[in-house]
Each structure stands twice: as C-alpha cells, then as structure tokens.
C-alpha cells in the first residue's frame, strides 16, 4: 500500500489503537492534519499546546494507555515542553508528534523552526527526528513501545514537512528490536529472598508505595500482601489510591504534607520497603536523617532509581506486580510479631489525626474537598493543579482505587489539573471526573474551558479560590516574615463565573458555608461540564507540614 508520510503517520496511530489525539495544527504539520481529516481517530482541538500534553497525560494516567499529542513545529512544539517534562517526571506514557520544517531547511533558522529534538532531549524518555519516510513505521512502532514499557515516559517524534509528503510503501512492523533497550530485566529471585528474610525479621516494617505500583497495575497484589502480612502502608502523592486509604493498615500519605503517623512510622521503622517510589526530597525531608534506623528494600523497574538519593540495602530491579506476588508467597502474617509496633501506630493515629476547623464560618478548602469526597462516595476520578489545594485533596479525598488521583507530583506543574481532567474524562467516559483547582493554577490553562464545552466533556471543576498563590503565601507567612511578594491574586482575579458561563459551562458560586453542599450537588448533577466557584478562606495553611530541610518527624501543625 502506497501512502504519503502523513497518511502513514496516521495509519500507525490507527494500528496502535489510538482512540484520541490531542493537538493543534500549523504550517509544518498541515499534511498530517489533512490525513487526520480522513481518519476515524477522534481529534481534540485544544486552545494551547500545553493543554494538549496535559490532556494526553491525564488520559494516560486514568487508563494506563499511551496518550498522543499532535502539534506543529517551532512554537507549537516548544509549548509542549512543560507537558513533556511533567509526564517525564511522573513516568507517564505519551507519544508526542511535532511538525518540523523541511529537512533541507533544518538548521537555517527557518520560519517556525526550533531544534525540538535538542530542546526536548532532557524531558523525554527518547526522541526521534524522522529523516526518511521509510523509517517512519519502525520509528512509530518503537516510540509506542518505548513510551509504555519498562519505566514509562514520553517519546517525541519530530516529523519534517517534506518527509510527511514523501510517498512510501507502507508496512507496519509487528515487532521491535532495540539492542540498547531492555525494559524488563528478569527479577533476581535471590534478592527477593534476601528482602523477604529481612522483612520477616523486621519488628517495625513499613511499606512505602509510589507511582510505580500504579503504573505496574499492582493494586490487587499490594492489597493481598498487606492483608496477609499486616504491614502498614504509606503512599506518595503519586501512589494515592493504589492502596485503599480507608483500610486499617493505611497510614495515608507521607512526606512534607503527609500525616504525622505516616512520617513517624517511616522514621521509626526498622525495615522500609520502597515499592515503585524514588525517595523524592518532598518525601524524605532531610535526607541524612531519613528513616535512620531502617534497612531499606527498594523495588523499582528503573535500576537508576536505586541508590540514587538513598543508599539501599536490598535492591530488586523489576516490575512491581510480580515482585509483590513473590513477596506474598514468601512472607507470613507478621501481626503477632508487630503487636507493639501496630499499637504504637494506633497511638499516633489517635493523637495526630488529620484535622481542620469544623466550626469556622468561613468556607475552608478542606471542608469543600471533604464534602465532595462524601458526595462522590470517594469514587470519582480526581485531578488537581499544584499547590495547597493539591495537598488538601491528597489529605482529604481518601482515595480507594488506583488511577483515581491524577496530579503533577514530580514537576509540580500548575495548570495541570483542568486539562488532565479533560483527558481523564475521555479515557473514563462513564465515571465522574472532578478537578480540584486553585485560582492560581486554574488561570494557567483555563483557555481549555471552551474545549471542554465544545466537545461536551462533563468534567466538574471545583475551583477553590482563596485569592492567592496559596502555597507561596503560606511559605511567605511562615518563612519570609509575612512579606507577600507577588502572591496576591484576589484584586486582579477575573469573574470566574462569567468566564465559565461565557465558555459555555454550567457554573455556580458559593460564598457561605451553607451553600457548599447544595452547590456541589448542583454541579455534580449537571450533565455537562460544570464549575463550582468557591470563595474560600484566604489564609488557611496546609498542615501538617515538614518544612524543607527538616527531618520527616520535625513536623509543624496547627495550634
């Protein structure tokens, strides 16, 4: 079958089973968009390319399937950089196709030319420049394979416009053979046994579980392991949901804004079992005081994650799911051995529960999230932007299933929440998708309101408007003598209700506490996309908090 490069590109996507492509056209990618016109693939036209990457990312995190982005050269491509970096940091499978100027013009500073392969090299798992149309099917096959195997990540394919016009005999390969890529090394059973021995001897073990367990689809295996052994579990912000937070063995989230009891448990553990997590600084606090009494077992598919920031005692390189299965075989019920430990944890849980002021007249962010959680029965797919609202969502929603908390953990990309909700909703059309956003985060990508409205994507935005870059304000209050430099948004914020309505959304505003529950109900009951504008407390801080540079158990909390 003879096809142009552009037609071949779209054919590759069809053969990979791609359902949605997110993007925005432009000169150098026009031939490919002409081929999109003939395809059954559903194309989502965004208002800004960053939105396209976050949508593809949200789609991927909600489903486990590779998200796909199609944009033009130059500014189209550079606008994807934030989204690529977000996906790279959080190991999200994505294929991003960027137009490029014609091969003969590359390097000449042509119109809308940028060295996209060069620019995106540090923020992609791998990238390609297609120089010959004959290479295209192989490159696309490899791109999809690399993106969603091993430790997943974004792969970029830079596609010059002349190559997209060349004609080729199209044949899509069935197989890939990359001699420098071995995503699934065999699991070293001796290491697994060594780890199991260590865990069996432990008196104060803790499981510390991250996004790798979500990516591996290991929720069931984790639950089985914990039910069998009774080992308490804490998760990172990316691991939220992989273990039900209502389970008695759950310690909830650890780290800077984690629970007291998660952080105390980690600090007092004698064996810490890290599963698909990478000892991020927001998790460890001061690194040389992290889990000082613990031997550390680390299970990760990426060998480079092991002993990167924390020296590990037993490492297991491999996919989390089969490793947890092996653990379940080798380990026994540890509850009798952990009596004291579990009793101690119960004491911590009782003494330091997560809390907020229930009596105040103001609308507190925690209150809104708590109510949305109850009204959606903890079953919604949740996305967030970045900042205070993200941390409160992590604390108060109480996630029960994997892939239900979608947020930018590694890069901390403000503006991520709303477009990722659009992607998540497309991937899981029959579920309620709620985006908790802050007024700062939301304004970064709110141009996509019209995208949600045009395609009738029924996401529910809970906008927690405190008139500040709240997390910045919190740090300024605590560490910069209340000098609120450039963190005040209130006086310049637009009328969010009008913006939402002008974009075709159903919108409501709540300003009093007694309006909150009816407001949430109204928004959730609406069939299409909807926004609830909540005027919330301006000076509420996220607690507990481990200030940067403190050990994990040096926690400050509200009085």
């Amino acid at each position, binding site marked *: 079958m003879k096809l142009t490069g552009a037609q071949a590109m779209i054919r590759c996507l069809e053969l990979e089973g791609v359902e949605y492509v997110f993007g925005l056209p432009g000169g150098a990618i026009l031939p490919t968009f002409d081929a999109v016109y003939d395809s059954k693939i559903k194309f989502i036209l965004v208002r800004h390319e960053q939105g396209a990457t976050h949508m593809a990312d949200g789609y991927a995190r909600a489903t486990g399937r590779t998200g796909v982005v199609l944009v033009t050269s130059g500014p189209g491509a550079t606008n994807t950089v934030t989204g690529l970096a977000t996906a790279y940091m959080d190991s999200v499978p994505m294929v991003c196709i960027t137009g490029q100027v014609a091969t003969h013009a590359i390097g000449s500073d042509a119109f809308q030319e940028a060295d996209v392969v060069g620019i995106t090299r*540090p923020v992609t798992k791998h990238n390609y*420049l297609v120089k010959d149309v004959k290479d295209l099917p192989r490159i696309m096959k490899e791109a*999809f394979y690399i993106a969603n195997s091993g430790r997943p990540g974004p792969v970029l394919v830079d596609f010059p416009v002349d190559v997209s016009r060349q004609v080729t005999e199209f044949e899509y390969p069935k197989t890939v053979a990359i*001699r420098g890529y071995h995503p699934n090394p065999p699991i070293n059973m001796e*290491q697994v046994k060594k780890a199991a021995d260590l865990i069996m001897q432990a008196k104060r073990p803790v499981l510390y579980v991250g996004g790798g367990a979500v990516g591996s689809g290991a929720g069931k295996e984790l639950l089985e392991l914990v039910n069998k052994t009774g080992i308490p579990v804490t998760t990172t912000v990316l691991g939220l949901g992989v273990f039900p937070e209502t389970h008695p063995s759950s310690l909830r989230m650890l780290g800077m804004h984690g629970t007291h009891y998660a952080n105390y448990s980690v600090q007092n553990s004698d064996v810490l079992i890290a599963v698909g997590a990478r000892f991020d600084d927001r998790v460890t606090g001061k690194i040389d005081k992290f889990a000082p009494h613990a031997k550390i077992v680390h299970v990760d598919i990426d*060998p480079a994650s092991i002993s990167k920031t924390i020296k590990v005692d037993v490492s297991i390189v491999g996919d989390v799911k089969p490793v947890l299965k092996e653990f379940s075989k080798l380990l026994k019920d540890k509850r009798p051995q952990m009596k004291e430990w579990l009793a101690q944890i119960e004491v911590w849980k009782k003494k330091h529960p997560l809390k907020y002021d229930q009596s105040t007249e103001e609308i507190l962010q925690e209150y809104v999230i708590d109510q949305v959680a109850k009204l959606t029965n903890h079953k919604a797919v949740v996305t967030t932007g970045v900042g205070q609202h993200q941390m409160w969502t992590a604390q108060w929603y109480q996630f029960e299933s994997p892939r239900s908390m979608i947020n930018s953990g590694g890069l901390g990309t403000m503006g991520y929440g709303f477009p990722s909700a659009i992607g998540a909703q497309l991937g899981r059309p029959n579920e309620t998708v709620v985006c908790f956003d802050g007024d700062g985060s939301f304004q970064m990508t709110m141009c996509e309101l019209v995208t949600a409205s045009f395609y009738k994507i029924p996401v529910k935005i809970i906008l927690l408007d405190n008139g500040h870059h709240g997390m910045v304000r919190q740090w300024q209050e605590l560490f910069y003598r209340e000098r609120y430099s450039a963190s005040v948004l209130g006086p310049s914020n637009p009328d969010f209700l009008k913006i939402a309505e002008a974009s075709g959304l159903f919108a409501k505003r709540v300003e009093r506490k007694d309006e909150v529950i009816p407001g949430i109900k109204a928004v959730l009951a609406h069939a299409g996309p909807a926004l609830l504008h909540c005027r919330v407390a301006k000076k509420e801080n996220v607690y507990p908090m481990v200030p940067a540079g403190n050990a994990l158990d040096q926690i400050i909390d509200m009085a």
Partner: protein
Amino acid sequence: MKHTVAVLVENSFGVLARVAGLFSARGFNIDSLAVGETHDPQISRMTIVAHGNDRVLEQIMKQLAKLIDVICVEDLKPEDMMERELVLVKVQANAATRNDIMQIVNTFRAKIVDVSQDTLTIEVTGGESKVDAMLELLQPFKLLEVVRTGTVAISRNSVLSVPAAEIVEPKRSAAAATQAAAPKKTKSKTKEISK
C-alpha cells in the same frame, strides 16, 4: 576517584549530544571523552574519563545504560586495562634548544612530526601520567599549542560485546482493553548492584 568508562553506542545522529547532555544535566564531571566508529560501522565506542565517588560512578553507569542509544557500558578496572592518549605539542625551538627538546622526546619515545625555523611539533602517545610528565619537562621551552585526543582505553582480558537485540512483539499500548507491553525477560545493560 578517577574512572574510565567504555560505552558502545549506536552510531547515529545526536548520540553524542545525549551523552554530553546527560553529564551536564546531572552535574557529573567529565575529564575527557573520546569517540569514534568501531569495526562495526553501526556502532561507535566512547571512552569517558570521569571522577566522583562510588555513588556518582554508579549513577553515571546507570544513567548511561538508560539511554536507548547506549548499547552497553563498562567501568574499566585500572588493573585490567590499557589506556592511551595521543597528544600533539607545538613547542618553541631554536638552534640552541632543539637538541635538548629532542632528548626529552627520545626519552619519552615520542616523535618529532614537524620541524620549522622556530618550532618543533611532537607527537606523543601514552597514559595520562606519561603525557603530563613530558609536558612538564617541555614547559620551560614554551609550549605554543597542546592538543589532546582524550583517553581511549581497552580491557586486557575481556571483550565488550554487543548483546543481540531481542525481538519483541509489543501489545498495542494505546489501545483500550490492553495493558502495557510485557516483553520477555532480557539481560540488563549494567549488572544489578546488590549490597
């Protein structure tokens, strides 16, 4: 501590930039990097000399191995390798000094490759210490230009071999109702570190 790392890479567009970018992005220090095609024209070999503690070296090896275009990585053991560097040195020379310079050249088994009215160009190969020693002795005669290739190294007893690419038939990772590709078991590019 100094380490000499041998890396086999795909001889393709942009690989050097990937390797160099990795070192700069992660703050690793490169002392030298030499690269050239091997007997297989599809494969280039890099010799990277870097310094850092064991943890840094471990990360360098693992991060290199993680690059898709890197085929294999090996930390060459000092006791089991030969390393050489080629250096061209242009030194000021006149009738009065020429003989003294040539004596130094002979002592180091270096070669004079060009002579002019007032310069001598010397070619020397050897390990780092030999080259440094000779440069030190030539210093008083005024060095005009020094060009170093960077170290290349090879192990005495083992061969850095290219693993055969395994053929994988991935599932359609973008399609509904399929999960991530589950390829067969493979050998990793660096040895698993167990402590």
